[in-house]
């Protein structure tokens, strides 16, 4: 991921915040706000996932585990302790996710590449199976319903703004992180772990760190989702959820910080539009994916920024700036 001039990312973030904060004002139906909230939550999930994959080069196929933990932290607390426990429950889920990521990290960050991917998948599926089987406590595949955020936040518009604020702050933080020395060293870990070791840095320690951070924000996304949908399901733990977020990231562009967010927006929209007019959605989404993977390997944002840098005038500006250095 080339480190963008920081102003570009700041602008993107601002545009993103303004656009999404206008949704409740401009919407014509409540559903549009719901979709926007889905884009926000999936966007956060995808951006945190991409801190692992696009930035550090760790393709985890088990992030659904943390997404589910965030959601079930909030959901189960509401189910057993009452509505007021929504936010403490979410916090509990996030803490649990971080602790789990720390523990599991020790086990699975011993291997790299496809082995790492398979291990994350294995533990993710184990988590799903446990949640699915532990019927008496988790409600199994029936899930938990009626998870309504307490007080003021039971108002959908207010909750939407809460989601926007938390997602915005998280993305801001992750953006800062990826432009910081920590982000730089993580990108270096992806590109050349051997060299990172020769910088006197510990590769695994850095991977472990970002694995925990990514899982933590993933859990936050899960927790927020439980309040958007008012219900949670064991599907949230299933590997297809992890697959979904991989799809979003690659579609949007894993080399761009905002790529996964754009990918999330596109996928959520496509699913909605295509699902509404045909039952052959899987054929259509499959074909779109096929074409994207073969034709636009950098993802939407990646191709756009590529076009941008290739503009003739722009090229000149770049050269002069470099010479000025």
């Amino acid at each position: 991921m080339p480190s963008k001039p920081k102003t570009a990312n700041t602008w993107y973030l601002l545009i993103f915040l303004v656009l999404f904060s206008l949704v409740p004002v401009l919407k014509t139906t409540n559903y549009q706000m719901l979709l926007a909230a889905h884009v926000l939550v999936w966007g956060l999930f995808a951006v945190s996932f991409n801190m692992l994959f696009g930035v550090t080069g760790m393709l985890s196929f088990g992030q659904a585990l943390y997404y589910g933990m965030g959601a079930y932290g909030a959901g189960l607390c509401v189910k057993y302790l009452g509505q007021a426990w929504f936010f403490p429950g979410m916090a509990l889920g996030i803490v649990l996710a971080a602790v789990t990521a720390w523990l599991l990290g020790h086990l699975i960050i011993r291997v790299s590449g496809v082995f790492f991917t398979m291990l994350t998948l294995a533990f993710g599926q184990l988590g799903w199976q446990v949640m699915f089987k532990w019927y008496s406590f988790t409600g199994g595949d029936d899930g938990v319903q009626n998870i309504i955020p307490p007080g003021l936040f039971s108002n959908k518009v207010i909750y939407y703004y809460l989601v926007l604020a938390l997602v915005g702050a998280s993305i801001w933080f992750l953006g800062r992180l990826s432009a910081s020395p920590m982000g730089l060293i993580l990108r270096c870990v992806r590109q050349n772990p051997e060299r990172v070791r020769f910088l006197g840095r510990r590769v695994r320690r850095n991977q472990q760190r970002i694995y925990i951070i990514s899982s933590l924000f993933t859990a936050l996304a899960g927790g927020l989702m439980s309040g958007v949908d008012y219900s949670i399901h064991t599907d949230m733990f299933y590997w297809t959820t992890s697959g979904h977020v991989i799809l979003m990231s690659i579609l949007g562009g894993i080399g761009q910080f905002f790529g996964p967010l754009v990918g999330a927006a596109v996928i959520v929209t496509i699913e909605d539009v295509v699902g509404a007019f045909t039952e052959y959605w899987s054929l259509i989404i499959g074909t779109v994916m096929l074409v994207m993977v073969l034709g636009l390997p950098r993802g939407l944002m990646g191709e756009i920024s590529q076009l941008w840098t290739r503009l003739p005038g722009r090229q000149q500006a770049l050269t002069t700036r470099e010479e000025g250095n």
Partner: protein
Amino acid sequence: MDFSFIVVQLISGLTMATFLFLIASGLTLIFGVGKVFNFAHGSFFMIGAYVGYQFSSVWGQNFWLSLLCGGLFAGLLGMVAEFFFLRRIYGRADEGGFQILLTYSFILILDDLVKLVWGTEYKSLAKPPALSGAISMGGIVVPTYNVAVIAIGLAVVVAAWWLLNNTRGGRIARASALDREMLSVLGVNVPMTMTLVFGIATALAGMTGVLAAPLRSVTPGAGIEVIIDSLIVVVLGGLGNFWGAWLAALLIGEVNSFAIVLVPKWATLFSYLVMALTLIFKPEGLFAPRKVRRV
């Protein structure tokens, strides 16, 4: 638990292991040779089953012919998929992610194509009449068909062993897993080898689909259902390790078979437990291929 019951349960486990192995072996072969992870492997299994159904139940052909045609069709389709699509992403940065996405898109597309052609009703395929009975011996009853399945599984193992060790093609397949560049220097057409291996592996999956059809219902969505189980076997056996996959399939089959008797409430958890436990102690799987990079 008396002795004959233990034997019966062992044989049951063996039947399950055979199907697991037949699907997983192709998956592991593709991975071993080409470092490609074919997420759509189960879809070729499903396609095979549907083509077998078309030949056997719709056109009234002999079961064995249907088996052959199901395998052939799936194999051809696999080669087309590799030749026209997968090949184009080899060597790309972050290839692993793209492999998963591309093959995942195959799953989605094939699922709907099957629905377009055959609809969503459950299809069914009759066993060959000669194999419809059961063999009974000293209180042990085993359906003839299951015995045939186990025999076919063993035949595949033996044939694969022979092919990999005694033919030029087998040696190339084994060698290309070790060093692609070296082979192209030696004048071997590596891309063609990959297409062929993909074809063989998907043909195996397709044949397994036909073979399994008389014991199951042929339904859409089967592709996604079998892939995770096969994956467990492949990972457990050590990615790309053919014999590892065989032993892992046996392990999973038998563990499941006895878990069902001893702890029926928790039986479904065991595949995952075995995998998780193994991987904690041996993260590369039981039988790791030669080059595993530990970070």
